[in-house]
């Protein structure tokens, strides 16, 4: 909180109890910003945390899914008789038993629990077996005969752009085009015309996947009263609850979803999945608990990871590096289903504007369906690809204009508190401080352009949302709720739908409540991620949990504190505003010797007001953008990151050794500092993997199989590849964040990929305009005339109806002109 404690917030006068809390926080935090033990840390180090596949129940059956071995086909028939006859098999189901489609987005309800009309990629599930053990279920799965009529698959989005006779889905914008969007904010042509330098680059970012260490698993069972309970490794129990209720045709009150601690998610467990629906249905049909635990290969088929994205970026620069306008285009390879794809598409165009001043901006984006596992949200959701393009192009501009790459960025930062061309409201903005930190620590000024051949440094920056401003399905309810219940013994029970996926959300929840109530972390006990017992939190995605759950927790704890403070104030005859809660005590700030234990205070309050159980909730602020598509990008606050990366490039092999990374992250305010640093390091790690080795590759000429669906061949960096990282935390509290906090889970990943590409240029003078930057590409670039490796052609996206929205500077109000009647593009 800020140094001067306000007497009002949001125009409302503060109660004496609220004022007392603000004064308490202004005097210094007990816990916030420190590094107390993660609340689940010891359980994890002791092997006691129960993940979904660690659960078992009496009479439990095991489920295996039969998955399609063809990329694209109509299902003519499924014969399960041989499987059913196998001893030990209890039930086999196919798609007809769950005909209702589902999907994470209301506009993309295109998945079935089991395919019954078509299969759309190798790995699409068509039948499910429940048997007494997994080995039997596996054998039975092999005995199911499916007759397919093969269709002509499409694996390349540029080919999918053409209208095809048999598109994957019967919805979307046309043919295999799932989503086509075009928006222009200000006159970009004019902006480019005013430029001293116009750069146009075509770049490609290959898809990659989350690869959580825990393979997805779920256990479902029917309660005696007929309710269904599922315990699943999901990041979004609330959305799974909605989807499951719909598919199973059961009222939400009869379905209970418990998210088990996720053994890593990174976005890969954010969708409702086939296997979850199947074990639920099998549990209902057999009356027995049913568990499914996916193999690593199956996790590759669940995917929902980074969209392979072909991009074209055209930007105008003034001589001093100021941008005059940008036209950004993206073509996303969506895979077989919608997933979050519409949002992903918008995200490729949304956040370019929040780092540097871009006065005029146009975005065209297209997502196509292809016969591969569906893409979706991976850490950074839709923004790492455009961030790569932007940051590499800025590096090129800096070189062309003779400006230091650090300066071209720092001199043109988007102002704090301003509104971007595409109507995003920027709050606190610590990117300048981030750049300063990494430039100084890395010795950038002495290194860039000055290291011996083969060695180089690269710099890149980024920003990310602290929670999506809008929920996935339209509603006006809070995004997060927290119930705080005080025990007579001084303990505090906290209930919240948030989901721990390793990011530390349980710890953040406990710390926010403990700080306000002045109790220790061990006094807090959490009940989380259970749709039967906890208030809704939308889930662990979009870096929203600290921001939204944190604010809800603050409010819930504040309300509980207010009740206690009122009662204690009366009893001890101390004005509420003077009461302080710390060290499990309540005391008079003017006479600290005058105190009572917190537990005593709760007893006084409970005697006076009755049982103390109160809720807090959080709804993000209204956003200035009102045009269609303005729902993607707004956030209560944006985090900022900057990185300098030093590489040593083997000039004979093209091998890139990342020697050291300096990264600074504008967190607003750390809740738990060591967990913040852990998130930064983890994000950098994942970014490094994307930068140099990770890729989802398929064999289009070999039936569309995934080339390498294994931990061995999908290359995830080991201890050997991890360079030392110097992390700098920039503190610039944001008025919207709980205690001023912003996100850290995703942002620090973003600058790594462009940072590596820029460093490679500094080292060996070639541009690799493609991720990952593998040694063969570096070598090819070094041996080429253009000293570049990357795509050279960008297809016609067939944009016909660009929505033009006036910027704030042009006197706009955030709305789009009423669109002319939409014309369906006629294509051959």
């Amino acid at each position, binding site marked *: 909180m800020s140094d001067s404690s306000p007497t009002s917030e949001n125009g409302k006068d503060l109660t004496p109890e609220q004022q007392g809390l603000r004064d308490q926080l202004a005097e210094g935090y007990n816990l916030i910003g420190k590094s107390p033990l993660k609340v689940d840390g010891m359980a994890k180090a002791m092997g006691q945390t129960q993940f979904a596949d660690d659960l078992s129940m009496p009479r439990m059956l095991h489920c295996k899914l039969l998955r399609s*071995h063809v990329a694209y086909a109509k299902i003519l028939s499924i014969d399960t008789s041989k499987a059913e006859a196998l001893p030990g098999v209890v039930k086999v189901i196919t798609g007809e038993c769950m005909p209702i489609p589902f999907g994470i987005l209301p506009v993309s309800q295109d998945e079935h629990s089991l395919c019954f009309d078509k299969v759309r990629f190798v790995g699409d599930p068509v039948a499910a077996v429940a048997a007494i053990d997994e080995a039997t279920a596996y054998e039975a799965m092999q005995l199911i005969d499916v007759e397919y009529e093969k269709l002509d698959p499409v694996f390349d989005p540029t080919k999918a752009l053409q209208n095809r006779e048999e598109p994957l889905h019967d919805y979307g914008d046309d043919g295999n085009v799932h989503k086509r969007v075009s928006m222009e904010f200000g006159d970009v042509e004019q902006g480019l015309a005013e430029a001293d330098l116009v750069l146009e680059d075509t770049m490609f970012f290959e898809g990659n996947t989350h690869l959580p260490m825990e393979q997805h698993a779920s256990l479902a069972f029917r309660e005696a009263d007929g309710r269904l309970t599922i315990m699943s490794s999901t990041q979004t129990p609330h959305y799974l609850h909605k989807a499951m209720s719909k598919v199973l045709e059961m009222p939400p009150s009869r379905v209970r979803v418990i998210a088990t601690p996720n053994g890593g998610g990174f976005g890969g467990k954010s969708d409702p999945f086939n296997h979850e629906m199947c074990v639920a249905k099998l549990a209902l049909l057999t009356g027995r608990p049913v568990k499914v*635990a996916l193999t690593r290969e199956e996790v590759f088929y669940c995917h929902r990871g980074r969209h392979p994205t072909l991009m074209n970026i055209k930007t105008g620069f003034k001589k001093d590096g100021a941008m005059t306008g940008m036209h950004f285009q993206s073509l996303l390879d969506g895979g077989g289903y919608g997933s979050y794809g519409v949002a992903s598409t918008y995200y490729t165009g949304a956040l370019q504007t929040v780092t540097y001043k871009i006065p005029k901006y146009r975005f065209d984006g297209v997502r196509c369906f292809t016969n591969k596992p569906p893409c979706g949200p991976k850490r950074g959701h839709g923004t790492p690809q455009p961030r790569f393009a932007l940051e590499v192009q800025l590096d090129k501009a800096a070189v062309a204009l003779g400006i230091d790459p650090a300066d071209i960025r720092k001199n043109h930062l988007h102002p704090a508190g301003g509104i971007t061309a595409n109507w995003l409201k920027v709050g606190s903005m610590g990117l300048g401080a981030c750049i300063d930190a990494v430039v100084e620590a890395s010795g950038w000024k002495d290194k860039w352009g000055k290291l011996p051949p083969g060695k180089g440094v690269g710099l890149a920056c980024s920003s990310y949302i602290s929670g999506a401003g809008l929920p996935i399905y339209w509603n006006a309810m809070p995004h997060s709720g927290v119930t705080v219940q005080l025990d007579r013994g001084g303990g505090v029970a906290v209930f919240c739908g948030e989901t721990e996926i390793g990011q530390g959300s349980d710890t953040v929840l406990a710390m926010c409540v403990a700080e306000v109530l002045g109790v220790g972390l061990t006094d807090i006990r959490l009940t989380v991620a259970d749709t039967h017992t906890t208030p809704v939190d939308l889930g662990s995605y979009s870096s929203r949990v600290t921001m939204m759950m944190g604010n809800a927790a603050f409010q819930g704890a504040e309300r509980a504190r207010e009740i206690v403070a009122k009662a204690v104030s009366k009893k001890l005859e101390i004005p509420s505003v003077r009461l302080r809660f710390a060290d499990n005590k309540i005391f008079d700030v003017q006479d600290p010797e005058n105190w009572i234990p917190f537990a005593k205070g709760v007893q006084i309050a409970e005697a006076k007001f009755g049982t103390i159980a109160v809720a807090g909730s959080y709804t993000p602020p209204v956003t200035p953008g009102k045009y269609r598509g303005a729902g993607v990008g707004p956030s209560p606050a944006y985090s900022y990151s900057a990185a300098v990366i030093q590489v040593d490039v083997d000039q004979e*092999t093209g091998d890139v050794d990342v020697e050291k990374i300096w990264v600074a992250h504008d967190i607003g305010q750390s809740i738990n500092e060591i967990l913040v640093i852990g998130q930064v390091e983890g994000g950098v790690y994942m970014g490094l993997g994307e930068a140099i*080795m990770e890729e989802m590759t398929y064999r289009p000429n*070999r*039936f569309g*199989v995934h080339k390498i669906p*294994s931990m*061995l061949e999908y*290359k995830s960096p080991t201890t050997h590849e991890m360079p030392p990282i110097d992390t700098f935390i920039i503190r610039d509290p944001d008025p919207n964040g709980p205690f001023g906090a912003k996100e850290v889970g995703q942002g620090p990943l973003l600058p790594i990929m462009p940072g590596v590409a820029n460093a490679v240029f500094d080292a060996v003078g070639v541009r690799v305009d493609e991720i990952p930057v593998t040694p063969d590409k570096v070598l090819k670039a070094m041996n080429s005339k253009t000293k570049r490796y990357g795509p050279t052609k960008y297809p016609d996206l067939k944009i016909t109806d660009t929505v033009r929205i006036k910027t704030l500077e042009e006197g706009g109000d955030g709305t789009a002109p009423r669109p002319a009647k939409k014309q369906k593009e006629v294509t051959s």
Partner: protein
Amino acid sequence: MMRLPTFRYTAPKTAAEVAEILAGEGPQASIVAGGTDLYPNMKRRHQTPKTLVSLRHVEELRGVQLNGAVSIGSNETLSDLEDNAALKAKLPALWTAVQSISTPQLRNMGTIGGNVCLDTRCNYYNQTWEWRRAIDFCMKCDGETCWVAPSSDICWAVNSSDTVPVMIALGATFTLISTRGERTIPALEMFGEDGIDYLTKQPDEVLTRIDIPDQGSAKSVYRKVRRRGSFDFPVAAVAARVEMDGDEVKAASIILNAVGPKPVVCETAVDAILGKKLTDEVIEEAAKLAGKGAKPLDNTDHISMWRKKVVVVETKRALEALAQ
């Protein structure tokens, strides 16, 4: 969780008993030592032996004897060799190769004999039954086509052993026993021409011993190309051995691996350095000649054309190291 198929398990105590069981069971039996190659293959159902004959209790196949020559029991674990300081001092190239295999845990399990007999690898083959069904299987297992080279009559699965090229370069011999007797063969003769018949060892034979002659003044080196510093099999590897007479090369051996179904003996490259000083020009020329023998295809990690180029670089670096 991936599960093993059904098998019968035996764990005899002597090599003779192992040989007897193998003779009785025929090709449906498989020896298992560390299990680090076989069990994953069984879980993926591309090796489905009916009987497993474990070497875990066969003590006679353990141990290392270091005199002038070196004799290594086939059942010696990789980490035991890694921890063997005398071996490291005597045969640094072999030690480097051993130490580069996979991960510490897998080296605690895997054996030197297992690495010699390592099944050839291919990313059309090292896949689950479900995955391979999608390509209608491949020549090496259950199918007809070699998907790496569909017009090929042979299987192009890759010999991915780290230790094999070093052993060939060092002039090692392998001793095999069966109920039919014992035979000792030069290391190179162990390896067949294609990815299916990659071993000349017969199904009823047990590899018992690896013998490496005294290296005298010869120096050798092993260089491995892979994506990561652990886990990964080589995608190109070079073992080189040089014996000098003054400034000039008296004898030499250059062996490539992981660039085809069989280790590659680079005879023309060796000819290019014999009797010469190892100058930059001589090394460069030899490396180019060595690279011609490499036929990497698109069935491992990394781009095959890049592997072909890097083999030349790594051969050059290997010879440069020996020239010092």
